[in-house]
């Protein structure tokens, strides 16, 4: 009966408790049907399929939580929302993944294989922080520098230019100051971001 489902879910200090507190995603509601994993487009590349991540969190065991935070899966998730759109319990896995990434990043537990993903995201954000809009060229170069993947995609550059698909000069918006403020307010100290 529905009345039973009204019981409050207990929030504790486990990682799943924190997830519930910060994102309202109820990890304990997952009944391990595996439907999310069955439909996840990147599951074959993940070290733990999404439903397994949930199971590991459900145990509340510190070693499991650490495995989750150090996993490659949380960085691979594309936020494609396929899993939640089919989950019978409507567990917002992408939202949870967002949170796990942030914790993993803060705790410096990013999976080595995911370093480039993080570098890309940072390059992306830096690009818009300074100009307000994304300079795809700047982003590419910046990312290449950070990831030292100089050769990858380099072949693309000339053909992109010839197709008019890559501009060299970043577009500047007028409100760059406002942008800087937004970044400062949401990401805390500027210097930390600079690092």
């Amino acid at each position, binding site marked *: 009966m529905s009345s039973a489902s009204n019981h409050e879910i207990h929030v504790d200090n486990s990682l799943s408790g924190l997830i519930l507190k910060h994102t309202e995603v109820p990890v304990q509601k997952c009944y391990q049907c595996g439907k999310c994993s069955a439909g996840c*487009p*990147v599951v*074959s*590349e*993940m*070290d733990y*399929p999404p439903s397994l991540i949930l199971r590991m969190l459900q145990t509340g065991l510190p070693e499991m939580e650490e495995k989750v935070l150090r996993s490659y899966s949380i960085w*691979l998730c*594309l*936020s*494609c*929302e*396929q899993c*939640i*759109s089919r989950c019978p319990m409507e567990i917002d896995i992408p939202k949870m993944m*967002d*949170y796990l*990434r*942030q914790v993993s*990043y803060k705790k410096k537990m990013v999976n080595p294989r995911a370093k*480039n*993903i993080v*570098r*890309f*995201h*940072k390059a*992306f*954000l830096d690009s*818009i922080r300074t100009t*307000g*809009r*994304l*300079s*795809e*060229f700047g*982003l*590419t170069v910046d*990312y290449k520098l950070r*990831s030292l993947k100089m050769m*990858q*995609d380099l072949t*693309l550059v000339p*053909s*992109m230019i010839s*197709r*008019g*698909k*890559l*501009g060299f000069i970043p*577009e500047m*918006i*007028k*409100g760059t100051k*406002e*942008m800087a*403020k*937004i970044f400062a*307010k*949401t*990401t805390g100290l500027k210097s930390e971001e600079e690092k």
Partner: protein
Amino acid sequence: MKLGIYPGCSLTGSARDYNESVFAIAKACDIQLEQVPDWNCCGATAAHNMNKELSLSLPARILAQAEKAGLTDIVIPCAACYSRLMVTQHELNNDPVLKNRISEIIEMDFKGTTNILNVVQMIDLYVSPVLKEKIVKNFSHKVACYYGCLMVRPYKVLQYDQHEDPQGMDNVIRLLGGTAIDWGYKVECCGAGLTMSKTEIVGMLSGKIVKDAARRGAQAIVVACPMCHSNLDMRRPAINEYIGEKMDIPVIYITQAIGLALGIDEKTLGLQRHFVPVKMAEYIPPVPESKKQKAKEPTNTI
């Protein structure tokens, strides 16, 4: 008819072709598109991967700018931006505390009243009704309409009830005189967010999509998102590597398909900018080597 438009970063860069075709068909159908003044990047996947407040503030500023400019309806051609802005408006409208907090961050008043349209919704409302009389050449191709993830999901926020089998673009193609096939990867993700950092994965995800469309005899894949386009078009080398075979199926924007039917020349529509040449008439889909070709064996992930 006047509408606001939020082009987003890629339409001014890698998706210039998309931008051109959006404006071309808008012009042909007497729709004036006015840019949101001094718009900024929506933050895309990077922002919400890394920082929640940032991921809400960036779109909120865009919407507040539109509100300030009196743009009540804005069309967002990029599905990724569309999804970010829709989600932001939804979240903030449902959480007054958060709304205040974000308004403070962006130092602007955010009301959350904008009517946000994706390209297909714009076409439905303002283009389709006048299409019949304007078509000069039937778009008589068999195509696979690809929606990807962000145009239909999260379906409860986007209010998209046919999220498993969307029909928006399919209907437009039919209106244009073409055929839209039923296929298996309509709403599967192409890997947008990983396009630079994990190109091989994008090759796999996009490869599955391209392969399914081609083997079902589609002459082109029709998309409505710059991310989808660049992954299926520009990333073709990675795709070919994944499939182990050269795939020639072109990828066009829905706006380009409409433009062609309206008799707008290919250059105005930006077709020359594609990596995979758009020669639909000449393109013959490959016959699957054997009908019984096995799908990729399930992979063990442990």
